[in-house]
């Protein structure tokens, strides 16, 4: 098991404090800068490992950054704290994005990112909770995160805890039936302490989601299963923050975050081939320059 990096964790704590005190524009800028730093770190990891899911990583990073740097009640130095909010990355193939985010928050040293996917690294191609603090359950096969998150939300309610469970789902993985079993359970039980964020980039591994197996109308589907649904621009940090922290009623909440696969790198954006293509060294230089703007 990796251990926290106290200096980075302290910096994260300062960030959270400054964020809490900041006005909207400052908040937006703080999260935007932070997310692009993680994008750069992620590209470096993928370039070194020659492996990863870069398109989905870029797509989900604004969501992950908003959660870890603005929303989640967690403590990188106490990853086992019983009343922490739970975060589950159901689309486990974007582990690189999660690792970059967790390291930036101090859950483990940022130097560890250099080992990504290397022999015996704690940072496997899909996240392993036994080795990586901040990872709550092992994901990778799709359609697993939502049922486990429902169990976590049931547990929080049973134990009278106010902790909240957040799960990020890929849109393509909503083709897995297990999600709808769990969506039904969450709606039936009125799990208001559960929020599912759909990274709606409209591309899956091989093609567009709507050309493969139609997901729309996704909002109506979740509503029909007993959820409240919010739809936001998944790269607008303030909109994400507001949706993720909005007052909850008596139902679980689905935040459909409309995103662009490959977001932030011009030649990757909305292109299906960048699902898991590995960028060349030159492409990483170009991408890093774009993200520094």
């Amino acid at each position, binding site marked *: 098991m990796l251990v926290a990096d106290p200096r980075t964790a302290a910096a994260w704590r300062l960030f959270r404090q400054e964020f809490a005190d900041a006005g909207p524009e400052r908040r937006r800028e703080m999260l935007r800068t932070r997310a692009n730093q993680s994008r750069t770190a992620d590209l470096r990891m993928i370039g070194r490992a020659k492996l990863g899911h870069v398109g989905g990583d870029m797509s989900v990073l604004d969501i992950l950054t908003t959660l870890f740097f603005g929303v989640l009640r967690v403590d990188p130095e106490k990853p086992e704290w019983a009343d922490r909010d739970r975060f589950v990355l159901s689309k486990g193939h974007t582990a690189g994005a999660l690792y970059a985010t967790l390291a930036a928050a101090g859950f483990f040293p940022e130097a560890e990112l250099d080992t990504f996917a290397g022999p015996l690294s704690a940072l496997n191609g899909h996240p392993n909770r036994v080795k990586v603090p901040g990872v709550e359950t092992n994901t990778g096969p799709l359609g697993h995160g939502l049922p486990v998150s429902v169990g976590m939300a049931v547990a929080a309610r049973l134990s009278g805890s106010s902790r909240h469970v957040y799960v990020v789902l890929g849109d393509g993985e909503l083709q897995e039936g*297990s999600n709808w079993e769990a969506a039904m359970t969450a709606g039936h039980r009125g799990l208001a302490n559960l929020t599912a964020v759909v990274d709606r980039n409209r591309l899956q591994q091989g093609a567009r989601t709507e050309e493969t197996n139609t997901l729309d109308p996704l909002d109506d589907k979740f509503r029909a299963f007993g959820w409240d649904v919010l739809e936001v621009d998944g790269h607008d940090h303030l909109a994400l923050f507001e949706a993720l922290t909005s007052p909850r009623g008596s139902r679980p909440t689905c935040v459909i975050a409309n995103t662009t696969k490959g977001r932030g790198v011009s030649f990757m954006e909305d292109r299906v081939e960048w699902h898991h293509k590995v960028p060349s060294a030159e492409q990483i230089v170009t991408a890093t320059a774009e993200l520094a703007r």
Partner: protein
Amino acid sequence: MSAPVLSSPEAFDCRVAFADELAALAREDERIVAVCNDSVGSSNLVQFQKEFPDRLINVGIAEQDMVGVGAGLALSGYIPFVCGASPFLTGRALEQIKADVAYSQSPVVLCGMSPGMAYGELGPTHHSIEDLSWLRAIAGLDVIVPADPAETRSAVRWAAHAARPAFLRVGRFKVPAVTGERPFTYGAATTLRDGTDVTVVAAGTMVSRALDAAEEAAEQGVSVRVLNMSTIAPLDEEAIRAAMRETRGIVTAEEATTTGGLGAAVAAVVVTERTPVPMRLLGIHREFAPTGTTAYLLEHFGLTAADIRAAALTLARTDA
């Protein structure tokens, strides 16, 4: 050396002992919860539901969700007993068992109710003869097959305290009491009858039949050792090696397919020793069952005391 334990004529449904012990544990420990798939009745959870309505999470007919929800509860400090008919729990939710329970090391107790061919005439869709093979292949998952009500109770109690990913096969087909006062011992075979010629390694419903076979073989001058192998994984390899040293052959008997279950596990130990002993693997050999009651099907597939005795006698008379 343990005294021989003879099977008694009375027979019991292990689900009753299971449910009773689970409710008792729940009274002692509020972390115990039950998760099921519309199987409150068939998993014998009626009493549990009556006493602990909030701690019985029935997700409906949704096994993938059921196992995932169990994992989420376990990762939040609860001790979930996830109960469903074994064919559906293991077959439908196999990937959840692998990823959410075993690989994630979430201490879920998976309770495969009415396993083997307990659903007799309902046919192969409702039989769970593949479960031992499937689950034994998964790293970090304990596979437990109690032989009678007392051992079922003891195994349920062990599972609640062990907090490890585990699968318990909870029998419905009535079996006699065979384990006496011996508690379930994790990872250890128990010698229910000692013998010097041949060893029968049995699990679950086959244990009482193995004892009967040993009794009948004794009348024919053959001394049969009977091991109750209630932990299929991890296997008590030392008990197998002792059987190889001290007896001349090994018969395995299981109400399951022989492609990967108890027999295969024992054989994997036997063949890697310098001087293997001959074996007979009794079970179901990659066949779907025809229509028939459980008792009929056990006979059909050669899983009676007479079949076990015949296999033991063959090995006893084999010149090594």
